[in-house]
């Protein structure tokens, strides 16, 4: 198991946003997480690399409890990639430097090799020729692909995608999804919060439906979409499919 959540509870003040979440992610698995807004699906993703603290339970990444006193959370994060809804590229750095910053500062790879790697991963996401452009000079889809290259370059054990296409113009969604599908087919372990049901059907191995901080549906994507057990999931799918 690459990621394990055990009885994870998370509160924002009085409000409990995650209720005893237990979840195991196997190496190479692609899990799509859906749910109504405010259901806790993004939070579920963000507790995995410790961006959100939890109140009880355990988060285990590749055998290490990320909250154990002996664990270096920075090291864990360098092994868990994350792609955000709003890209969050560093606007003062060009594409190459966005991708190789972590390589140089975290992995301590010398600049020439880090640059080479950055070129490789930018090419992999289809951005040849854009290496020296700044985020402000790229389209949303291109920015998100730089963000994916930034995560990939760290050679993570798993990548978390937090609504990676929600902020994109409709005609730019395709290029980002294509990149993600390619990754999934190459065997990358991925947890994807997204309402792109086409993506879920094509490469998702498991679909998880989160509601009020609980996982209420779990299974093969096509089946869960067709025959959800809960009324809440039924109405949800009837609206987005």
């Amino acid at each position, binding site marked *: 198991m690459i990621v394990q959540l055990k009885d994870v509870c998370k509160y924002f003040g009085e409000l409990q946003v995650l209720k005893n979440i237990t979840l195991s992610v196997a190496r190479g698995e692609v899990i799509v997480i859906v749910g109504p807004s405010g259901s806790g699906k993004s939070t579920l993703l963000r507790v995995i690399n410790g961006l959100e603290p939890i109140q009880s339970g355990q988060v285990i990444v590749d055998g290490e409890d990320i909250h154990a006193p002996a664990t270096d959370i920075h090291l864990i994060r360098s092994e868990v990639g994350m792609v955000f809804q709003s890209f969050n590229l560093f606007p003062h750095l060009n594409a190459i430097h966005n991708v190789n910053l972590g390589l140089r500062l975290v992995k301590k790879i010398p600049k020439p090799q880090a640059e080479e790697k950055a070129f490789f991963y930018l090419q992999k996401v289809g951005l040849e020729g854009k290496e020296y452009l700044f985020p*402000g000079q790229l389209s949303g889809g291109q920015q998100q692909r730089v963000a994916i290259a930034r995560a990939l370059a760290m050679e993570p054990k798993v990548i978390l995608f937090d609504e990676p296409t929600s902020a994109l113009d409709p005609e730019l969604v395709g290029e980002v999804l294509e990149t993600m599908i390619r990754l999934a087919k190459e065997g990358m372990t991925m947890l994807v919060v997204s309402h792109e049901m086409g993506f879920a059907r094509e490469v998702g191995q498991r679909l998880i439906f989160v509601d009020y901080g609980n996982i209420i549906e779990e299974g093969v994507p096509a089946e869960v979409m067709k025959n959800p057990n809960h009324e809440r999931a039924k109405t949800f799918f009837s609206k987005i499919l």
Partner: protein
Amino acid sequence: MERLIKNFLEFMPILLNGTVYTIEITVAAIILSTALGFVFSLALVSDRVWIYRPVRLWINFIRGVPLLVQMFYVYFVMPDIGIKLNAMQASIFALSVCYASYHAEIFRAGILSIPKGQWESAKSIGLRYWQIMTRVILPQAARVILPPMGTSYIILLKDSSLASVITVRELTRSGQLIATSTFENMQVFTMVALIYVTLTQILAFFIQRGERKFRIS
């Protein structure tokens, strides 16, 4: 006219001598107040109460005391508790402590102007606090920080004239001394004023160059 020139030649070396002190005080206080202000700002943006609360109180306290009074305090009161500084040191100390409070607020505004997503994405690739601060946050915050910081440096330069009241023979004090012995008030203080304008223009030039460096394409 002849008298003007004769006086000018006589006063200028004395005023320039004072100008050297003014520059020394200003440069030292800019460096110290900026460094201290930055450290304070890190405390101010901390989410730990025991870190930010004492610094917040200190800054509010210092901001409430006039710089002139702070100068008197450092020069005349601190020796009573065993801290003896000469006039030059005392003026640098007072200016640095006073301006550190302002600079902390300027840094804080700059740091807070950077969206949370920048912190999160930097964290998500494994960067540590200090790396995030120096490689991601500050280079972007510089755009917000530099304009008010530059203005603050210019005010600091002019406020260094308050050192004259604790006997530092900087530019203003030099002018006063010439004026009281020659009664050439108009010429002396005009010269003093023009030297200050020259100094602030030079400082403004460097600030603008700094601002240009941090413009994002």
